[in-house]
């Protein structure tokens, strides 16, 4: 029997036959993100990082819940027509997503792609819809500065200096409703990344660990679709930060892909340098709230015609880092057209 391979193109790209529509987007962020340059683009800003919850972990889960509920109510989709919920976060066993799914009650697929989870969820949600396995899919991710600090680094009140290349985990949650039909920007293609490891071991330089994987995904995406970066109004990496994006640009250049100012990083966009975040923002929420806010608004106003969102993930754990393993990276890309 000949294998069917209708929607897959080239190495690792899928092109959707009936591109899923992004019906709605909703973002909730913490105070620091609210004070940043994109403050006005977020749907909701919390006044503090716990918002009255008993722990940071509970707060993160509630934040995700709020973002997902916001996206559902904005999309005006009936609950019984929402077929799947795809969500993930950074905490062990993705508890933020699990607990949000417990409240929301939709059939749930938990996803872990570290900080690339938003782009990965968008790609998989689109596959579910274009594959006619679902009518509407709810996707969402969260991260929280304080929960990430205590899991990956040290207690938050401990007095130490952060490295210049270190990044600041974004407190926030972003969510979208993807649908078979409707009005809104459409997800037209996705490139699933492969895991690349160039030997970076420094957990304070996550951008350097992820940059090759992001560059590889962009390189293959362009090749698979026979496009150049000039075909995009914006190529936004998830959270490479200031160090990582420079590295990704240089690696791409050496591999024959020239990018210009249209290649930006959500981690650089979300904070102002005066906010003392060193190399920029990171975390699942970083790309999700920048996409759900700023990028969606510019797609809706047609300021952007075509955007490539490349989620970037560092696939390590505190245990693997302590055991001397290097940090594998991954980049997942989705094309969104106005």
């Amino acid at each position: 029997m000949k294998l069917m391979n209708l929607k897959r193109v080239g190495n690792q790209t899928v092109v959707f036959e009936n591109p899923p529509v992004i019906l709605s987007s909703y973002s909730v962020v913490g105070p620091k993100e609210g004070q940043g340059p994109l403050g006005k683009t977020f749907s909701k800003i919390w006044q503090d990082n716990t918002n009255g919850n008993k722990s940071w972990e509970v707060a993160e889960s509630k934040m995700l819940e709020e973002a997902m509920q916001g996206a559902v109510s904005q999309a005006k989709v009936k609950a019984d027509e929402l077929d799947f919920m795809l969500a993930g976060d950074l905490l062990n066993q993705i508890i933020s997503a699990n607990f949000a799914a417990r409240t929301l009650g939709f059939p749930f697929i938990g996803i872990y792609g570290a900080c690339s989870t938003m782009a990965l969820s968008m790609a998989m949600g689109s596959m579910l819809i274009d594959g006619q396995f679902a009518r509407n899919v709810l996707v969402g991710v969260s991260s929280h500065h304080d929960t990430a600090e205590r899991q990956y680094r040290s207690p938050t009140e401990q007095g130490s200096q952060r490295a210049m290349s270190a990044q600041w985990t974004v407190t926030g949650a972003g969510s979208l409703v993807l649908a078979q039909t409707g009005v809104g920007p459409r997800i037209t293609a996705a490139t699933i990344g492969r895991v690349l490891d160039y030997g970076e071991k420094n957990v304070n330089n996550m951008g350097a660990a992820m940059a090759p994987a992001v560059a590889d995904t962009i390189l293959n995406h362009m090749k698979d679709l026979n496009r150049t970066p000039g075909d995009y109004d914006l190529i936004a990496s998830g959270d490479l930060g200031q160090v990582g994006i420079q590295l990704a640009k240089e690696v791409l250049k050496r591999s024959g892909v020239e990018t210009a100012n249209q290649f930006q990083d959500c981690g650089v966009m979300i904070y102002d340098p005066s906010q003392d975040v060193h190399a920029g923002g990171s975390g699942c929420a970083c790309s999700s709230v920048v996409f759900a806010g700023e990028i969606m608004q510019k797609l809706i106003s047609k300021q952007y015609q075509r955007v490539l969102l490349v989620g970037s993930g560092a696939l390590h754990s505190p245990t693997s880092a302590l055991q001397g393993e290097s940090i594998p990276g991954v980049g997942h890309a989705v094309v969104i057209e106005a």
Partner: protein
Amino acid sequence: MPGQNLRPPNLNITPQEYHNLTMSMTPKPNVIRNSWRAFLVGGLICAIGQVMINLLTMAGLERIEAATAATAILILLGALLTGLGVYDEIGKFAGAGSIVPVTGFSNSIVAPALEFKREGYVMGVGARLFTVAGPVLVYGIATSIAVGIIYYLLHF
């Protein structure tokens, strides 16, 4: 090793070249500024300790008692400033200058104590209290035992 099992196209850079590129593009810490700040704040904390010892001696304590009391007060101050959320700000400025003195040790105990209260007093605070300070204690005590044995043998 990247590239071995990957279908082309692949990135045109070797791990060694990438490592060199990362080194050249990663901002370096400002060693001179950081050292100066560490010297300033570390010195200030020690000077405060010395003033306490002098005052306590003047108040009639033996020198060794005064030193112990001053240390206890510094530990208390370190804990208080950690609880008030100030010590991590000092640490961000001073680096090793506020980690090495006894106030930094106090910070390294109180910070996990605050943080892990939500996981309960036994498996949270109890089990995690020494996550930061533990290694210092283990190797500090081990070193003191080794030095003690050497000292004993030399004076045998």
